[in-house]
């Protein structure tokens, strides 16, 4: 239990700080100190370890106050540990200390194991250090780019793109709406009337080949009716409808004998 030997490093303060910075953190230093005891880590004296560590930190602090926080945190924790370990055996606080000490020893053993693993790894034939792979590997793969990657969606996109671009380039022309205009109907009625001796149904005057859509058909009907009314107003013809929605009849207006209600 008693502190056996004083910390090994001489209290040359500057050297101490430099020395501390050579370690990868407090645990690294602790492991180093433990190895210095030259005993199995399982049998090392935690107490002497703590004393050595605290002595080193104390020495370093005398030179430089701004010692890294983790060194000081470890120092504080070790001070606490020491106080517990120094209590009479059997007290709960002392047992707490023993447990903490065992935990510290376990961590040191783990770190020691890792260090050995890292040494073991370093001693492997390291590629690029001890053994070398082929400097210039040969690439025997060949790329065949003769085939095409084509798919329908791509074709469709291309088509739409082409149409859209050309639509953009072209000057705007409103679509030609092909309907039978009143002028068309007037001309046709005037031309046809002369050759019709009898009352004739309005439908007969629709242009041929208007077959198309119902819209075109209705437009032609309306135009022809308006044209008929126009001609009737000018006295060129007469119209007659026997009943609502019945057929509309047209007749040339040359004689003034009959005058049915129009």
């Amino acid at each position, binding site marked *: 239990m008693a502190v056996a030997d004083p910390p090994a490093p001489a209290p040359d303060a500057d050297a101490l700080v430099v020395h501390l910075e*050579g370690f990868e953190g407090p645990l690294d230093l602790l492991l180093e100190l433990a190895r210095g005891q030259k005993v199995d880590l399982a049998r090392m004296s935690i107490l002497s370890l703590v004393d050595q560590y605290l002595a080193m930190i104390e020495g370093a602090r005398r030179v430089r106050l701004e010692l890294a926080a983790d060194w000081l945190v470890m120092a504080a924790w070790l001070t606490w540990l020491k106080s517990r370990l120094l209590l009479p055996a059997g007290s709960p606080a002392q047992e707490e200390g023993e447990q903490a000490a065992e935990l510290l020893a376990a961590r040191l053993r783990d770190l020691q194991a890792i260090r050995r693993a890292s040494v073991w790894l370093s001693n492997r034939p390291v590629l690029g250090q001890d053994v070398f792979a*082929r400097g210039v590997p040969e690439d025997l*793969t060949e790329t065949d780019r003769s085939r095409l990657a084509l798919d329908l969606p791509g074709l469709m996109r291309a088509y739409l793109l082409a149409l859209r671009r050309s639509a953009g380039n072209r000057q705007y022309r409103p679509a030609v709406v*092909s309907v039978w205009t009143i002028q068309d109907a007037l001309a046709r009625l005037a031309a046809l009337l002369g050759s019709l001796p009898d009352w004739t149904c309005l439908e007969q005057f629709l242009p041929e080949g208007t077959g198309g*859509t119902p819209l075109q058909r209705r437009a032609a009907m309306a135009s022809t009716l308006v044209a008929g009314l126009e001609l009737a107003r000018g006295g060129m013809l007469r119209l007659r409808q026997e009943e609502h929605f019945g057929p509309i009849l047209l007749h040339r207006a040359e004689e003034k004998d009959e005058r049915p209600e129009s």
Partner: protein
Amino acid sequence: MSDPNPDPPPAPPDPEPPLLTPPPALSAEALDDAVRLAEAMVFAAAAPVTARTLANLLPVGVDPDAVVTALRERYAGRGVELAEVAGGLQFRTAADLAPRLRRVVQVPRRLPRAAMETLAIVAYHQPVTRAEIEEIRGASLSQQTLDALLEQGLIAPKGRKEAPGRPTLWATTTAFLAQFSLKDLRDLPRREDLLVEPPAPQPAEAEAAPPAAPEP
């Protein structure tokens, strides 16, 4: 970094020969050692190993030519051979094996955009002249693009248009159908299903469609 102890390089038994030794009759072991070294060096080097480099590396007194000859013999007829390239030595896969080791990776190409657009126009408007294609695309059609499509056998001439100059008419081929996994041209999506907006006015009467129907 924090390692204050620059670890010394490992010093395994290095059979470094004494310098300035006059070339004695070379023992079989000495030659074999040199051959091993040359083998490892040619293997690991990132560039062909020149005779000069090799000579510098080999123990004094060893005839580099003898080493190279022995090494070449060792690999003669094997899967890998010692080749002399670009003024140096290098291992190379034996020529007769290369074809068996070669793996072909297919990386299909995409058609350039112009070619794809042209192809689509031909598909939908065939048979169609070059001038008509240009009008629909609103861009001129380069010979290169046309050639690319012809070369792939995706389009083919199909008669001539009875118009001034009798221009060639183009149509898609069966290879085109195969490429797009189509049984028939009628399997192409209908134009109506493609175009949400009313189509751009048709150039000339390229199509046999009924006189433009202003269907809403």
